[in-house]
């Protein structure tokens, strides 16, 4: 088939446009790439402090023990006459003796009591001290762990950020590569679409489906059925949809069956010609 002059001019114009567009796209892409519009590096170290609980305040010290002042003995009473005074002295001495003894006993008891109290207070203080030390140790450990976790999270985030950045860059590179290869393959496809290879591929598929179509008696001229066939590389037919059919149930069955019977379809000599989607029209000419 020879193309008409207008076709050729159209092709040339389109081709120029396409190439201009390609160069434009590449330039634009290169410009975009050069512009430091990549994600700002400051974002990379953005971090929030995770340690939200301050270390627990140390417990207030218990009041110091306050020893009670020793009890003073009562002052001696005044003396009277000799005998009486003697007696009185003796009595007084005796009484004083007794009083002293008593006071000493009281003193001793008080001391003992005080000692016991001091002992108890000391024990309590020691216990409190131990608890305080323990709490401080725990708080310190917790703070350490939190600091470590925060540091790790930050490191992770940084790593992620870097990976993300790398990925974006890779994707952008991939897109550009894809675009380039797409344009290249489009050009190739453009070339092969009108080549004998395409005609040959169509003829092969046509022959294959024609051979698979056992035409029912009701498939006469005027009957027209359209199918969408989906094939996967290798030619296996995975899906058949009857898009429209003015034939009867037998015709419908026959064309659908033909599509499946034709599987696998022949492969094109040029892989660029492969297309997963094929439209097949059954239109008996007699």
């Amino acid at each position, binding site marked *: *088939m020879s193309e008409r002059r207008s*076709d050729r001019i*159209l*092709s040339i114009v*389109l081709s120029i*446009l*396409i190439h201009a*567009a390609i160069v*434009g*796209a590449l330039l*634009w*892409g290169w410009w975009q790439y050069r512009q430091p519009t990549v994600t700002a590096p400051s974002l990379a170290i953005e971090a929030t402090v995770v340690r939200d609980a301050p270390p627990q305040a140390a417990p207030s010290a218990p009041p110091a023990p306050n020893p009670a002042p020793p009890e003073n003995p009562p002052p001696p009473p005044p003396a009277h006459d000799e005998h009486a005074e003697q007696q009185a002295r003796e009595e007084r001495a005796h009484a004083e003796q007794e009083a002293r003894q008593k006071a000493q006993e009281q003193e001793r008891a008080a001391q003992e009591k005080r000692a016991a109290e001091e002992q108890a207070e000391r024990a309590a203080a020691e216990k409190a001290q131990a608890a305080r030390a323990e709490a401080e140790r725990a708080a310190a450990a917790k703070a350490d762990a939190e600091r470590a976790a925060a540091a790790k999270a930050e490191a992770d985030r940084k790593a992620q950020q870097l990976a993300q950045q790398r990925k974006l860059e890779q994707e952008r590179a991939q*897109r550009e590569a894809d*675009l380039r290869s*797409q*344009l290249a*393959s*489009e050009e190739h*496809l*453009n070339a092969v*679409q*009108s080549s004998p290879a*395409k*005609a040959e*591929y*169509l*003829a092969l*598929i*046509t022959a294959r*489906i*024609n*051979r698979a*179509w*056992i*035409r*029912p*008696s*009701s*498939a006469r001229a005027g009957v027209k059925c359209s199918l969408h066939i989906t094939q996967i590389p290798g030619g296996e037919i995975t899906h058949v949809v009857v898009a429209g059919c003015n034939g*009867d*149930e*037998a*015709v419908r*069955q*026959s064309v*659908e*069956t*033909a599509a*499946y*019977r034709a599987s696998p379809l022949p492969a094109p000599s040029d892989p660029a010609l492969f*297309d997963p*989607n*094929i*439209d*097949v*029209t*059954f*239109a*008996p*000419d007699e």
Partner: protein
Amino acid sequence: MNNLMTDRVAGPLRQRARQVRGCALLALAAFGLGVAPAHAELQILITKGVTDPIPIAIVPFGRAVPADGGFDVAAVVQHDLESSARFRAMQRRDMLTTPTSANDVQAADWKAAGNDYVVVGRVTAPSAGELDIDCDLINIQTGTRVASQKFIANAGSLRNAAHLVSDFIYGKVLGVRGAFATRIAYVAVQGKPPSQRFQLIVADADGENPKVILESSQPIMSPAWSPDEQWLAYVSFENRLSGVYVQKVRTGERQLVSARVGVNGAPAYSPDGTRLALTLSGAGGNLDVWLLDLSTQGLTRLTDDPAVDTEPAWSPDGKSVYFTSDRAGGPQIYKVDIAQPKRVERITFGSGYNARPRLSPDGKKIAFVTREGGNYRIAVQDLASGTVSVLSHGALDESPSFAPNGAVVIYAGRDGEVGTLQTVSVDGLVTQRLKSDQGEVREPVWGPFPR
């Protein structure tokens, strides 16, 4: 041819596709987006197809023992479908499983065995005297149940019900009505002259179930079905002279409709059933085709020629009659317009002998006997194109008659000294011999669809 057709359609489409692709490229360049390439879809046009037999598996049906009397429905269905030449049935010994319901069909197995369709079914006895046949038609390629149908029968009608199953499958798959549950009529001759017995027999289309509806020591000839399939017209020499009779098949009730001087022969019912075309000679002995009104007994001359005009056959539209005439020397087939009997058109030319025409049900083809190198064979001519195909391969084949669906032609062939019933598909690919044990058989005629 296909390639040409493909090219013709693909040309403009390809051009359009290229323009579309151009636009897509511009968009791609302008926006730098990763748009999927707008591949042109491959466009295929199929105009021919093939007429290979369709691979089908008729799985033995579930039985209702003992009510079904051991009748093998699937075997009858398989025989019917194979005889049509449009189906190739899987052999039972190759079946890995014998499911009787659609749910039990392992599609992959049947597909691997090369089938397009699988038929499963079961006979049940829901009540005394009743037998039901349920069957499912499954398209293995597409994995769909195409149709399911119940046929109600009894022990005596199981064979006919099996033919209806065949019709059902044939119709669903091929889109035309099956003709398995129809009947044929033919003449059987026993013994040798002078002590011969002639029988008029009606049988199932596959030759089974033959019933004698008339028996005579004198010749019986030219049976013809009424369009309602209730009556047969025929020629009987039972009074030593020819007479045309019509007889009700079911009751045997009959009537002599033409016993005129000379030959009374070759009756043919009009498509509306009100008239007979027949051959009469009158006293002069010149055979011409006449029309006989069955209700008024009124006669109308249709042909008027000094040559022999005989063997009339109606076109399905009832507007013309085809007949054999030797007005040009040898026998050839002509057509006469009933409204204008003077308008006669010659139809056959190829051979020096073309006779005994019968029209296909769609009126587009004509079957007749032709002479081919000293042999008499069955030929079919396409009326529009004039193309003739010789379908049979015998030496003395006679009396072709189309099945009511037009797919097969029945005729009488000869095995040595004995005439047998044979069928041939209209594409000539499959010939079959019908079973008959009634001696020599002649003049088969295929009945219309029962109404």
